[in-house]
């Protein structure tokens, strides 16, 4: 009874604040100057154009460098400080290392290829994990809005993730796609590799049916380019959009103050969901699918 009263009271206060805000401010026109959806707009900080290709440095580039530096530095730092009796940080790192080694790489490939491709798969896992995680830490990257600290305009805190931009997952996917096809061709030879794309059990089929199935298999291999990249990109983008809209983006866009009060408690829920589950899960999925693709390309009997 006690808990129930508390929950009801909390809901009543929540709705009361929303209604009060709605009565007090109503919809006093929109704030056109502040555009929260600019979180996903890439402002070129340093303009660079090499032979017609835009290579400007923007916040996505900063996040990429941050993620790479974090991945390399934390892992080497922990590796150089290995002890017989692991402390907490080392234990946590060992759990993830074991997950990448025995579960992701070892569970989906032959032992020979698992040993060869574990650095690649593990590197992908840790890079994407760090890249996702620093996306949920507010960093001073919003150069459009500034905060004055002792007269100096610092960029405002904002969220962004390199993986919330299609280019980054797409490049990772292209690297994965070429490496698994390359490994398959190197292992089995050109003709045998492409023959192994056909599922087993089609020996009695006529050539036309085989060709049709081969075309479908070729398509499915190319669709992997889209599915692997868009899965990571869309998950992170949708998470950031949800956090943005619930945290007040909707209220600003529509000019309704009460809506902000209504949606605000959901931010906590979505933020925890994204940080605890989605960020790690998407890194795990990307690495696992890479291992599955390499394992499938090199498996003896497909």
């Amino acid at each position, binding site marked *: 009874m006690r808990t129930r009263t508390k929950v009801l009271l909390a809901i009543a206060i929540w709705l009361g604040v929303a209604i009060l805000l709605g009565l007090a401010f109503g919809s006093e026109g929109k704030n056109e100057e502040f555009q929260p959806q600019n979180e996903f707009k890439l402002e070129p900080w340093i303009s660079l154009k090499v032979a017609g290709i835009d290579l400007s440095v923007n916040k996505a580039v900063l996040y990429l460098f941050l993620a790479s530096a974090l991945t390399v530095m934390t892992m080497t730092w922990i590796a150089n400080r290995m002890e017989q009796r692991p402390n907490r940080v080392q234990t946590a790192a060992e759990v993830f290392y074991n997950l990448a080694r025995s579960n992701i790489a070892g569970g989906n490939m032959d032992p020979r290829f698992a040993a060869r491709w574990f650095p690649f798969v593990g590197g992908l896992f840790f890079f994407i994990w760090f890249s996702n995680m620093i996306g949920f830490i507010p960093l001073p990257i919003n150069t459009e809005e500034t905060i004055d600290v002792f007269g100096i305009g610092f960029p405002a805190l904002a969220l962004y993730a390199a993986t919330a931009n299609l280019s980054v997952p797409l490049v990772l996917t292209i690297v994965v796609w070429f490496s698994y096809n390359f490994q398959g061709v190197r292992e089995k030879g050109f003709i045998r590799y492409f023959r192994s794309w056909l599922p087993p059990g089609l020996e009695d089929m006529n050539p036309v049916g085989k060709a049709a199935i081969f075309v479908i298999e070729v398509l499915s291999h190319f669709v992997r380019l889209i599915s692997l990249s*868009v*899965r990571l990109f*869309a*998950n992170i983008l949708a998470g950031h959009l949800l956090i943005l809209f619930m945290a007040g983006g909707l209220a600003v866009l529509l000019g309704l103050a009460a809506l902000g009060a209504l949606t605000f408690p959901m931010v906590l829920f979505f933020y925890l969901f994204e940080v605890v589950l989605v960020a790690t*899960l998407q890194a795990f*999925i990307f690495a*696992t699918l890479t291992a599955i693709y390499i394992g499938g390309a090199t498996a003896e009997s497909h």
Partner: protein
Amino acid sequence: MVDVLMLAQGGGGITDTGITDAGKAIALGVGAGLGSIGAGIGIGIIFGKEIESVARQPEMKDDLQAIRWLGFALTEAVAFYTFIFGLIAFFL
């Protein structure tokens, strides 16, 4: 509420661009919503089957856990594909 309708109509009365924008907004909402139905059913099936399997063979729990998360993430992504294509329809 009026503001939502105004936003959907492109800020003014019903004009041609207003109708187009409204159609795009409806496409985004309906597309992402219908896509979520399929992904929701899929995720429900995955977790339901996993619970069933663990109830039948509790010793398989650790093996099933990894497969469950793989299936969950693969299915959940389908909802986001529809969402992304909805956004593409909305902004292009």
